[in-house]
């Protein structure tokens, strides 16, 4: 039994579903943030799988891999900014539990 694109896409989808479930189930803002990273990585896996699947002149499609490179860069910047916001939030409220942060809740 050979490994096909199907397997990679399904693993990618499962990883995305795990991240999605984590974002909706967990109430700790740092763990929600980790689950966001999980979802970004799931997207990267499907991009790399398609890059290997769609050969250009017998080589993987490197445009997809450059896109993955950009996603990793932007995700790293996002983590830095997001964690700085969490630290500022913790200074203001002394909590990382999302249900304690409800000033804007109607």
């Amino acid at each position, binding site marked *: 039994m050979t*490994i*096909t*694109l*199907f*397997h990679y896409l*399904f*693993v990618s*989808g*499962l*990883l*995305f*579903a*795990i*991240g*999605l*479930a*984590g974002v*909706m*189930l*967990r*109430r*700790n803002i*740092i*763990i929600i*943030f*980790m*689950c966001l*990273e*999980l979802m970004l*990585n799931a997207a*990267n896996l499907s991009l*790399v*799988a398609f890059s*290997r*699947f769609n*050969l250009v002149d*017998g*080589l*993987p499609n*490197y*445009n997809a*891999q*450059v896109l*993955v490179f*950009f996603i*990793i*860069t932007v*995700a*790293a*910047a996002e*983590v*830095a*900014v997001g964690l*700085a*916001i*969490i*630290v*500022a939030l*913790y200074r203001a409220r002394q909590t990382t*539990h999302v249900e304690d942060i409800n000033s804007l809740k109607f």
Partner: protein
Amino acid sequence: MSPILFYFFAALTLIFGVAVVANRNPVASALCLVVSFLGLASLFVGLDAYFIAVVQVLVYAGAVMVLFLFIIMLLDLKAEERRKINLPAYAGGILVAVAFVAQLWLVLQRFSAAHAPFPTLWLKDGQTSVDDVRNVGTTLFSVDNLPFQVVGVLILVATIGVVVLSKRELK
């Protein structure tokens, strides 16, 4: 990639991904996330994307995880105490995730091209694998040169933003 290795690393990625969600202690979650990312990097190696695999390990397993662990220790977070769980939210979250996986399964079953094996690479004589870093670099600095520079500006903006946000007095 041989099927055994694929299943091993896919299982590693998914099991530790579940552990990230299931752990009560944020430090344990962060460490599970590292293992999950390492498994993912191994899957990238199986797809002949060596450069992306190395960048994944350096950026995620290195930089991002250190940042997460620093913040968790800085905030001195303890394991979450059990609170009354919001049952509709739990059920809804699991339902959406399961519905997503079911729909993905149905769509992928009908996507016939995905069931063909991966095409073989055209390697020059004497090569055992692609010149991955060179090819990514060529694409990055020729076709995608402008986006590359824009990303540089983005990182500068993010750095300044983090410094401003981390000041003691936000004005």
